[in-house]
């Protein structure tokens, strides 16, 4: 009940955030050097198409009217038209979003599932070999460009040893795509029982997910470690120790209290991952939204780019909304 109240309040807070975000995204088009309708219609547009676009965007109307049109359209799922794919942008997005989500969510979950235990372990076992290895890894991971690491992994595991498939998207070309259920190919293959497709999809997932995990998991490890260490030295864990509490309970107290700040970092990792996915998708020809955005930039296809930025911001706001809600659940001190 308390949770519902808090979630409700937090959701209402989302409205003004979305409002400001939409204004910024709306004004991105104003950054274009020249006539937006002409530029957005694309190189091969006819005069009629440009005229049509000019009237949909309401370019002869006052600014607030143009904004109202933009918001109305977006709310109806109309993000404009991509001249490059000659499809409505919403169709392109529907097609590509699952692939990106698969990459981002899988990486996020693996980073959490591995990063938090590793962070706890190194906080408890200081000065081991594992600690030194992780220290070096943490330093390097913060500086290594993810797109370059992807290429190195491709070189080692594909060109050199041939263990894993090359960067040609989500499936081998000879394997037929499983019928679409969620849009994420590995998941669809699993759900539909297409084992050959499933195996191929998983193999193709390994390198991009490994690339992103290696680069971004370090944030979770470092923060978990720092927070658990700090909590092990806190008054209440030291008091538990002074009262002869079992070692496992002492550790549990420390971890439990380290969790709220770690949740925030997990949110930040997801936020970074979306940017990382753009690059890694490009490296692995993944065919997701990130690659779509890059292709749109290169070919000056503005409608999809604008939609992508809006989606990225909405994704960010949702991630931090979830962080706040998770925080509320795990910390009883937060007031409704």
């Amino acid at each position: 009940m308390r949770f519902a109240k808090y979630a409700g309040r937090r959701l209402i807070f989302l409205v003004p955030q979305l409002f400001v975000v939409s204004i910024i995204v709306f004004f991105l088009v104003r950054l274009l050097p020249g006539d937006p309708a002409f530029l957005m219609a694309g190189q091969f547009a006819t005069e009629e198409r440009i005229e049509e676009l000019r009237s949909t965007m309401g370019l002869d109307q006052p600014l607030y009217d143009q904004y109202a049109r933009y918001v109305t359209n977006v709310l109806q799922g109309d993000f404009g038209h991509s001249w490059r794919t000659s499809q409505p942008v919403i169709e392109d997005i529907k097609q590509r979003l699952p692939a990106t989500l698969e990459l981002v969510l899988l990486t996020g979950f693996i980073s959490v599932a591995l990063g938090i235990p590793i962070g706890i372990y190194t906080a408890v076992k200081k000065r081991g070999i594992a600690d030194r290895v992780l220290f070096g890894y943490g330093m390097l991971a913060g500086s290594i460009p993810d797109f370059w690491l992807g290429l190195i992994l491709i070189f080692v595991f594909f060109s050199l040893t041939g263990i894993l498939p090359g960067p040609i998207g989500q499936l081998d070309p000879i394997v037929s795509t499983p019928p679409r259920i969620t849009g994420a190919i590995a998941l669809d293959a699993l759900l539909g029982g297409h084992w050959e497709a499933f195996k191929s999809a998983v193999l193709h997932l390994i390198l991009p997910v490994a690339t992103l995990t290696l680069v971004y998991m370090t944030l979770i490890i470092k923060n978990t470690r720092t927070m658990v260490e700090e909590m092990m030295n806190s008054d209440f864990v030291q008091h538990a120790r002074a009262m002869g509490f079992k070692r496992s309970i002492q550790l549990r107290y420390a971890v439990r209290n380290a969790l709220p700040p770690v949740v925030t970092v997990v949110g930040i990792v997801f936020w970074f991952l979306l940017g990382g996915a753009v690059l890694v998708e490009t490296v692995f020809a993944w065919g997701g939204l990130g690659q779509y955005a890059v292709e749109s930039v290169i070919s000056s296809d503005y409608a999809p780019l604008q939609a992508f930025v809006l989606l990225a911001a909405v994704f960010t706001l949702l991630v931090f909304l979830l962080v706040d809600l998770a925080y509320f659940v795990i910390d009883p001190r937060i007031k409704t």
Partner: protein
Amino acid sequence: MEPLLAVDDVRVSFEKESGAVAVLNGVDLSVQPGESIGIVGESGAGKTVLVRTILNLLQEPWKVHQGQIRFDGEDLLAKQEEELRQIRGVKIALTSPEPRKQLNPLVRVGEQLAHGIRAHRKITRKEALELAVEALESVGIPDPHLRVRSYPHELSGGMCQRVVIAMALSHSPKLLLADEPTAGLDVTIARQILDLMAELVHEFGSSLMLVSRDMGVVAHYCQRVAVMYAGQIVEVGETEVFYGAAAHPYSRHLLRAARAARDDRRAAAATVEARAAAAHGCAYTPRCPVAITACEQSTPALEPVEDGHAARCFRRGEVARGEVQA
């Protein structure tokens, strides 16, 4: 009688990159079974460090250099963490200042009490929770069956201290180390807490080591008093003797300050500014009104003034008899 606790020449320092800072400079102290002893002294004298050393809790960058702590026939400083765990909370318990900080903010107090109980007794969680309710009841918390489900932030400071005391006494320890149990509490609440503690300790026949800066509190609750200054016990004696004939100039200063504080609330602000002097002579020399040349040249030992009353001062006899104005 064999003392319950014997602290013998314990030296502890805080190791920094730039060098070690000596915090305990040879502490000698004993506690008899069933007795209440008060430890007084200004902040920075090393009272809390002494308490933590007795439980062998200190970790890096703290270092115990020397000394022995015998408790109930065992050498505490020689024990491993797991052996100590069987003593902590069972035979020796602790309460600390700022009780709210001693409790895990994300776990219900009943659970925490149960964790403490189950750390040393093989019973189920449910049984432990029932004992937790009883424990809360025994420290005078109203509606204990409801309060076990509270989080620390939902309780007042006084309530938190009652929980901490309940936890400390849940295994009827032989010794309770009460480190400033009333710091930060209202005067009326403080009284209640101390009365409760004294009553329970008496009931269990435990010894009590009450660390405090309040001379009045110590006089009221303790049979003996030990005064700490710059990491040493500088005087120890029966409460009545001590308050009548304190033999160390620093004790006299504390008593005077306490009286002044009571009279006009003008508590004498004092800090340990003269640590450096300890290397050669008595650490109190720079602040001592009756210091003589000998005080700068060597440190006096803790020597008897009369039976059961000792002080670390060359002029202890004169000071105790009031022959010099210290």
